[in-house]
């Protein structure tokens, strides 16, 4: 069956599908032998991870992968290294290795770690990495922190992150499970930001205005039901 093309970083996509499509998409990178060797090495020699993880960009390139929109070659390669590592580590070991890669990583490595989290059996141990990424003003990290793994964020942290997306111009399409999690408190916060912007002669991005509208409609429906 032909499936419609779907971005691999679609935050609502089933993570089980992602790794396989990344493998296929990486077939044409500049140094595919390096990637194959790195993936074998990581399972027999896990301490090689920091060096392999750091080298992925110059070995596989940083081009966007046409077959998996939203993914660059270096990100995909790094994510696969972590997926492979997960086959030979305990949850605690994996979480420690992932945190190490993040904290010692440059911005591209950190983004790759964040994008890998939904594919890794780390439970909620990597939540501090999301907190760190959401504290930055690097929009690439912020967007990557709000994928499927963001379901582990508590609601106050999640609302602040969504508002930060609106504030810094990150498209809300990056946010996993947006409408299901958006609540009355987010409505109050978003409406407040909208009021501030209007007072300043500015406005919100279209996707935020649309969310505000949906939340207001839902709130009105609830009120009507309660009154009825």
């Amino acid at each position, binding site marked *: 069956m032909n499936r419609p093309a779907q971005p691999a970083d679609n935050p609502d996509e089933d993570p089980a599908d992602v790794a396989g499509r990344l493998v296929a998409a990486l077939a044409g990178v*500049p140094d595919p032998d390096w990637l194959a060797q790195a993936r074998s090495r990581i399972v027999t020699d896990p301490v090689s991870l*920091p*060096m392999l993880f*750091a*080298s992925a*960009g*110059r070995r596989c*390139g*940083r*081009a966007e992968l046409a077959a998996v929109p939203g993914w660059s070659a*270096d990100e995909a390669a790094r994510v696969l290294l972590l997926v492979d590592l997960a086959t030979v580590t305990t949850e605690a070991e994996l979480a420690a290795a992932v945190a190490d890669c993040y904290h*010692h990583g*440059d*911005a*591209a490595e*950190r983004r790759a770690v964040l994008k890998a989290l939904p594919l890794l059996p780390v439970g909620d141990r990597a939540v501090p990495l999301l907190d760190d990424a959401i504290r*930055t*003003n*690097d*929009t*690439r990290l912020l967007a990557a922190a709000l994928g499927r793994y963001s379901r582990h964020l508590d609601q106050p942290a999640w609302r602040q992150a969504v508002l930060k997306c609106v504030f810094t111009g990150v498209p809300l399409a990056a946010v996993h499970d947006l409408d299901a999690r958006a609540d009355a408190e987010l409505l109050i916060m978003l409406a407040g930001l909208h009021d501030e912007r209007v007072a300043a002669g500015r406005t919100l991005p279209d996707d935020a205005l649309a969310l505000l509208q949906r939340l207001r409609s839902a709130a009105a429906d609830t009120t009507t039901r309660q009154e009825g």
Partner: protein
Amino acid sequence: MRIFDPHIHMTSRTTDDYQAMADAGVRALVEPAFWLGQPRTNVGSFVDYFDSLLGWEPFRASQFGIRHHATIALNPKEANDPRCAGVLDVLPRYLVKDGVVAVGEIGYDSMTPAEDEAFATQLALARAHELPALVHTPHRDKARGTERTLAVVAESGIDAGRVVVDHLNEVTVGLVKESGCWMGFSIYPETKMSPPRMVEILKQYGPERILVNSAADWGRSDPLLTRTTGEAMLAAGFSTDDVDRVLWRNPVEFYGQSGRLDLSDVAATAPTFEGSSIMRGGG
């Protein structure tokens, strides 16, 4: 005029500077790790600084269409503080990063035994990681400092063509040219080197192996003096190709030796881009 500033400390500059640099034709730059004005007292301060050079600062540059790379090292001034000696131990983890195109700034400040050791150790790290080296020359006792610098470089076994010796002037340029190292010039409003003096040096020594930078930082400096120097070259009769060589192709050639210079992001915006001159990978 497309400009690659091979030595500028953007951490100390404002976003307005990025805008002005982009408007002036700066499309790429290298930010060497150096001293921040206030001495640091522990390794963690360096780790945060290095992370910024590989994280926040490239992001900030990218907002203005400027490609940012870094060089990483323990600088000579702070090599003298034993509390910072542990920085040498964290360097290997940074020297494998994609955005790191050289070891630097290393070299001498006051020519102490601690500086000797840090300099030699980091030249060895450059060799081990197949990276070029960016070598600072001292502001005091510069001529003898430069001689001693070249002796240490020669003794280390690193290929002279993979070393740039920076902050040169009329007195020190000849020594460095003879050594086979690249010659770096920091154009400053009042001190190190001025655009008219730079033009005279280019007339005398030619454009080969010469890098012109603003070295702009938290001191009295100007991130647009690369452009001013290019204009002074044109006014003195140098061709646009000479200017392009000094302000773009030379830094691309020098840092391209790292195999990690990636200018693909800015290729489309470089007005006089020629496919063959943009190096991706080993070049």
